[in-house]
């Protein structure tokens, strides 16, 4: 395999890895899926701070 192909493959693999990590660690899939449900079926999210 030529050097340029190796580099291209390496860059592509790196992008896939970083994208996968981003999608896994930074995306709140439950919120995104919840947003796509009909309004009447969506879960209601309540925000709080651990303080009275």
């Amino acid at each position, binding site marked *: 395999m030529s050097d340029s192909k190796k580099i291209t493959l390496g860059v592509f693999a790196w992008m896939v890895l970083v994208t996968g990590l981003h999608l896994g660690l930074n995306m709140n899939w439950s919120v995104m899926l919840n947003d796509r449900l009909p309004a*009447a079926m969506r879960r209601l999210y*309540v*925000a709080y701070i*651990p*303080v*009275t």
Partner: protein
Amino acid sequence: MFQGFPEIKEALISNKMQAAFMVAPMAIALRAQGVPVKIVYLGHRYGSAVVVRKDGPIKTFADMRGRTIAIPSRFSDERLIVFRALKAFNMKPSDIKMVEMAPPDVAGALAAKAIDAFSMGEPYPSQAEMGGFGRVLFHAREYWPDYMSCVLVVRQDMIDDRREAVQTLVDGIARSGIWLDEGRPHREQAADFVGRFYFRQNPALLRWALTNPLDRVVYSQLTPRKPDFDLVRDLMIETGVLNRKIEFEEYIDATFAEGAKGMTAWKYEAGSSRAQ
């Protein structure tokens, strides 16, 4: 779970969150600025205190002259209680320096002498007491007999389109409050599972805050009352964080509190994953 009120405010405005517990003045200010939200219930009564270093020079509030006190937000009851104390001691706002600080940071800041005092909700006063470096100068009720702090705010579109969900939420809060106020064993159980699964704080800390004494935080009388909110509104105007006399009906929807009257306490077995 969030770490600061500004983040909660943004999440509510952007509809990432449909409801939120936030300090009452912030909720009133949001509505006054046209954000479509309404307060539907209280979270609790009391539960805030001004805390100073245990062995420090501040023995009364008058000793706060020239000192720095941390508050959670300029739109907070904890700031308003400081103003009430200033008035009681014939002091001017310029006699002290107020700084805004995220609630989880205040105990450490007090211990490190970065601030001289903080005005904050539980469990942070308890954290300073348990840590051995803090002393409660006064509890909020001392200068504000019907003190309230956190309220439940809901987006108007939720109130309009999903009333039953909002009512279920308010009913649950009402039942939890009745259950908590039934006595020490329930408060200790709550400290355990809330500390471990929701607040991610030491259950012993929450146990201290909920039982030392038992009425340090009270979870009854949570229906929004006009005199309470008129007082908050007027204090906000007086202290320069609100520029119009917004009426109670504009930012409160008390129908859900009415619907929650007659609720009974949860039936909950310690260690169970469900309540009835």
